[in-house]
């Protein structure tokens, strides 16, 4: 599984690319809104190769940080870093599994992505 954090301007361009590819059988782009100190949706089933774009709509900064529940994974743990209001980050999954994540600033904010 591979994850990328890409600055928002570039990610917007890439997101359109992913949506375009999604018209056929290619990867799709899914949106997760961070609003009211919650991830919405908090659980998301996606296909391997799909992209998830997280956008912070709150006044306060948040992170999208992968829980450290799979220490044997080969890839680097996903961590968006600080996302101020309006900022976004994107996660691309290239293998099946379950990725749980939370906000490092507000640990009660949690979610899960399940690539199939």
């Amino acid at each position, binding site marked *: 599984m591979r994850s990328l954090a890409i600055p928002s301007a570039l990610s917007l361009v890439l997101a359109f690319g992913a949506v375009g590819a999604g018209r056929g059988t290619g990867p799709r782009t899914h949106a997760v809104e961070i609003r*009211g*100190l919650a991830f919405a949706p908090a659980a998301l089933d996606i296909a391997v190769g799909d992209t998830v774009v997280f956008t912070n709509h*709150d*006044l*306060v*900064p948040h992170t999208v940080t992968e829980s450290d529940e799979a220490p044997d994974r080969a890839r680097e743990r996903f961590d968006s870093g600080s996302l*101020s*209001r309006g900022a976004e980050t994107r996660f691309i999954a290239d293998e099946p599994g379950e990725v749980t994540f939370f906000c490092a*600033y*507000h*640990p*009660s*904010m949690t979610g899960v992505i399940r690539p199939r």
Partner: protein
Amino acid sequence: MKRSRLHIATIAGAVALVGATGVSAQADLDDLEMAHVAVVASNIDIAYARIALDKSSNPEIRAFAETMIRDHSAVNEGVAALADKLGVTAKDNALSRQLLAGAEEIEAELRSLEGRAFDRRYAENEAAYHRTVNGVVADAFIPNIENAEVKAAFEAALEVFLVHQEHAEKLAAMAESWR
């Protein structure tokens, strides 16, 4: 702008929390005065957090304090941006001044403590402070705010502060074992 009469029991709770005493009259606050109280309350919590970063080596306490500084600063920036947009200025008032006076007592107490005693007191105070201020904002301020944008800003801020309260209460419960 209408002035809202806030019941003393609610205000006294907030003020007593930060150590002030002698509140014996009802407070009439308009939107701009309530906004000022909110900014002052945020600044007080930022001051507590800075003390925590000075004194504590506990990673849970330090992470919480950093979140308080980050979030309350963002909320205050939001208030300032809204005030600019509306062409108004938050107004100083007696309740703001009482909150600040009371906070000085808490700050002095926090500075006098060390180690686990400090961590416990900081966590307890954060839980109590957020519980009481959130109660004031929810029950006394928001129902009485006249301007729709100001009300929306308070409602958004309250969402943040309720999560702080939940976090602080968990921290305070954990702190019970730090003896």
